[in-house]
């Protein structure tokens, strides 16, 4: 089955490439074409990504796997508009991200993408509620509405009883759930998670992955980077990356 998928893939890609070249907007949620990311290390050039192309449709649940240093985080950061490619085109929701300026990228990060980090990255001095409110603040949402939305998002990750806690008063799993609530509060097009369970124990990891599964079943598009095969196995499609290239792209469900 996976062979079939693989076999058909280049044709799909070629078709979508043609659309792109003909100035048609790609219909998929994410469309990456020949993406390069090159770092200058002294005189040497390090290619973290060289020529990555793929598409993601709305509602997909994708795992990105690959050995350490293969470029997974680099790719995620590009998808999440935290970073810009050295070369290539990236369409998100039909908009060409590679041509955007700083403010537009900030807007995309705020509205279109929800990012979950391995190390949570919550503001230590702020309460759970305030952490979740932050993206709404930058989205220009008034305080009453934003309070309501943040409370709702915390409820969705089962943290209604931890609203006023600060990160150091929460367990690792709870912190990650606050981070997920923060990522989801603006109702983004995609939820990106770079090794979201990397800092959690097996049991808590399972809880978080259950939450992802639920979020996916509610219609969210999810991309997860992971090292663990059983976590990757929960996704519906697996992108395997090696040395900055997509080695394998298989649908498993």
């Amino acid at each position, binding site marked *: 089955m996976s062979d079939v998928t693989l076999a058909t893939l280049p044709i799909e890609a070629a078709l979508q490439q043609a659309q792109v070249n003909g100035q048609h907007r790609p219909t998929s949620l994410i469309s990456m074409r020949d993406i390069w990311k090159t770092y200058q290390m002294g005189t040497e050039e390090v290619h973290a990504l060289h020529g990555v192309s793929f598409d993601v449709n709305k509602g997909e649940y994708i795992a990105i796997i690959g050995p350490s240093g293969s470029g997974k985080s680099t790719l995620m950061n590009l998808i999440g508009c935290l970073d810009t490619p050295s070369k290539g085109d990236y369409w998100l929701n039909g908009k060409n991200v590679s041509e955007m300026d700083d403010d537009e990228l*900030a807007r995309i990060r705020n509205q279109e993408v929800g990012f979950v980090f391995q190390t949570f990255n919550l503001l230590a001095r702020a309460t759970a509620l305030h952490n979740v409110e932050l993206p709404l603040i930058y989205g220009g949402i008034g305080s009453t509405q934003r309070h309501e939305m943040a409370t709702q998002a915390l409820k969705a990750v089962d943290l209604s009883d931890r609203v006023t806690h600060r990160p150091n008063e929460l367990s690792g799993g709870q912190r990650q759930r606050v981070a997920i609530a923060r990522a989801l509060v603006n109702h983004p097009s995609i939820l990106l998670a770079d090794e979201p369970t990397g800092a959690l124990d097996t049991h808590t990891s399972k809880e978080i992955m259950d939450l992802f599964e639920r979020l996916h079943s509610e219609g969210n598009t999810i991309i997860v980077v992971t090292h663990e095969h059983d976590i990757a196995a929960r996704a519906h499609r697996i992108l395997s990356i090696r040395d900055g290239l997509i080695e394998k792209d298989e649908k498993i469900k």
Partner: protein
Amino acid sequence: MKLLRSDIYENLRMALSTLLANKLRSFLTVFGVVIGVITVMLIASIISGIDVSVKKEVESFGTRSIFISKFSPGIHVGRRSREERMRKELSYDDAIALSNLPAVELSVPFLDITNNFFGQKLLVSGGGKTTAGVALQGTLPEFERAGTQVVSEGRFFTQSEEDTKQDVCVIGSKVADDFFKFGSPVGQTIKIGSDEFRVVGTLQKREQFLISGGSDDQNNVIYLPFSVAKKLKPNADDIYILAVGRSGQMDEAKDQVRDLLRVRRQVSFAAPDNFGMETAESILDNFRSITAGLAIAMVVISSVGLMVGGIGVMNIMLVSVTERTREIGVRKAIGAKRSDIMWQFLIEAATLTGIGGVVGLSIGWLSTFLLRLLLPSYVPLWAPIGGFVASVGIGLIFGLWPAWKAARLDPIESLRYE
């Protein structure tokens, strides 16, 4: 909208917690601002105090008065120059000549006989008491029309009393209080030296203020007819003149007085005046130079303070930006624009210096109460407003570079920052 986005409340809270986390550093940072603002408050109220005094001075001096004396007006330090010491006295005839000028309404001479021939103060007694040190001035009845002294009881002496050298006098309110505490002084007798004088009138109390306080108390004065004063001390020649210009013709009056006196006192064409003229305007100018000096001192001291505070706040904010690189990365990752980060740090810097400003305002305000023991003064509204605006402004200006540094940080690099 911009400010709403950057979440002022959060920024204020963060500024306060940064402040509390680094008490010593913050104290040093805002210290300069505190000093600067205290300076503004204090000097502003000193200036206001001087302003009040000047207004009173000018009121009692009379806006149309021209005060003419042998020497230039103003505070004099040290021995006068030879030219000044050689100057000829002003005369009764000078005063009469000035009163005939078209732009001059009246002109009266004053003969000062406070000191006797031997330079001792004449003894004055009345109501059973005796003092020395009352100013004794001989003048003409027209003086009353100058309006700078108002008769409160009785009357001023008359031209016929002047012509017939009657021993009458008009007394200042302090003299009236000192000698005749009970009952009216009018009709009573005052002894000056060995001569007895009949009090025909008393004068209203003139406002006292710091600048002209002390021994030449304006109310501790007795006015006699000029001719009588001359009779009392025949060799007296210490004369000054009060001329009053016609309404709306002050400039002409000054010019005419000057020209006539130069002719009468034989000042050659290019030489400077050999007499002094003082008007309300020139008094104002004197005070203006004092207030200008104070204002410059205020600007200098407060600028230095604010600069020190500004550099301190820049330093603390640069440290804060470095310490919070990761936080900046997180904020950018969830959608903060450069301008949002910029505002965050600007507001933080302004809060820091603003707190310094408020502390300075409070201390400054308290110290103006102490000042009021020395000088009648008030705090003009511009001082606290200006002080606060300046302290917040300093935070904004010196916070600009750190804020810009923070805003420019790359999200990925800041997230990786350990």
